[in-house]
């Protein structure tokens, strides 16, 4: 049937996204931070694992280079930020999963972000001091 044939031939579609919504950004960031932390985890486990297997000396040496590098300090702050974001938004998602907050999703997002930001700032300050 002519109607049907049209449906099966592959045709151009647009994939324009909706960028103006809170939920969209929340989701994007959650995914990015999630993947980011996984990558960190992989790296972390490999480094720790390999150095530990080689013994205490190697471990101390590795940690020494890592923990005195200023760039890595900044990276660590970013990592903690990512974990905090992922965790705070994760709480928001868990709330939805148990059926709470659909009508207030934006407010919940901003509240959890405010708390997260406070935590992050706290971490940064305590780290810098």
């Amino acid at each position: 049937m002519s109607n049907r044939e049209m449906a099966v031939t592959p045709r151009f579609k647009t994939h324009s996204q909706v960028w103006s919504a809170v939920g969209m950004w929340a989701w994007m960031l959650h995914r990015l931070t999630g993947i980011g932390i996984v990558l960190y985890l992989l790296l972390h486990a490999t480094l720790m694992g390999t150095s530990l297997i080689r013994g205490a000396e190697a471990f101390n040496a590795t940690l020494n280079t890592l923990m005195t590098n200023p760039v890595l300090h900044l990276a660590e702050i970013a990592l903690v930020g990512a974990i905090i974001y992922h965790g705070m938004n994760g709480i928001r998602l868990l709330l939805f999963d148990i059926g709470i907050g659909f009508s207030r999703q934006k407010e919940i997002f901003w509240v959890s972000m405010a708390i997260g930001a406070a935590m992050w700032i706290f971490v940064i300050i305590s780290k810098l001091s």
Partner: protein
Amino acid sequence: MRVNAITWLFQRITAAVLLVLLGVHLWLLYMNNTSEVISFAEAKARLMSAPYITLYVLLLLFGLFHALNGLYTVMVDMGIKPRKTAIGALLAVGLGLFGIGLISIFQFIM
């Protein structure tokens, strides 16, 4: 795959548990830490007690499941086709890392 409901549920459960475990972990790292650089000796001192061991084994287990299942979710979202291969690869990585992790923790205890 008909385990969708279970993995989905586990992703939530691990998330909730990670929230607590990671919280404790980070707290220890930042608040209970005196020196600039963590040394083997310090780490060992902490890791010797049973609660700590449990904490880290659990963190490892749950973290790995959450992380790798998370990655798998992303892949399915993107429409990955040979799903079996993906699952195999993730399982291998997961088991590998779990092994390395256990050995590492073991190193401290020894």
